């Protein structure tokens, strides 16, 4: 399945892109997609504890399975206001 990954703030700078496409195996979760990305961008792995994930614009658990065309966003600590 193909998913779109969205990155913001520091994770975006570390990866060098705000949006990228990733091909993952059927049944992959947000966590496994993150791991694949972190292999290519090791500095991303250190940030995992401070990241939440959202699929299709809703916060979800890292164990959520990704459907084809899913939009997976890595959400760093929010600091609005």
């Amino acid at each position, binding site marked *: 399945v193909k998913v779109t990954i969205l990155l913001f703030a520091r994770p975006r700078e570390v990866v060098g892109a705000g949006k990228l496409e990733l091909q993952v195996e059927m049944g992959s979760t947000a966590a496994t997609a993150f791991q694949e990305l972190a292999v290519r961008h090791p500095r991303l792995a250190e940030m995992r504890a401070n990241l939440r994930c959202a699929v299709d614009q809703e916060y979800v658990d890292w164990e959520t399975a990704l459907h084809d065309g899913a939009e997976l966003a890595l959400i*760093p*600590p*929010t600091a*609005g*206001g």
Partner: protein
Amino acid sequence: VAEGRHLTTEPIDPASTAIGLAGAEDGAVATFTGVVRNHHDGREVLWLEYEAYEEMAERQIDNLIAEARRRWPLSEAVIRHRLGHLNIGEVSVVIAVAAPHRAEALESCRWLIDTLKAEVPIFKREAHAVGEVWVDDHE
């Protein structure tokens, strides 16, 4: 950066956000205005930059307003948040709620700003004399 329902790159005027919000049945309008200050954690701040996951942030703010309306009998609730580069003293966010009585206006306004900070995907970059950092604490 788009001009959204709640997010804007244009300066926000707190007064005009609150004016006209109260209907004939309302006895209170509560507002919260967030302002860019020149220090954070003991360090001087020169300016800020806000970035957002805009589509999700717009939806999340819609959801916050809907939830506030379920919890309190509000007549109106408006949230405007600035994105992009902000200088010291500029307004970053305005929340304005109108309600029949002051208690629900004040409580819901407080809940809205606290929940916005914790949940809405808006990110802040601070510029110090020595460089710039993404802010990763919840004050």
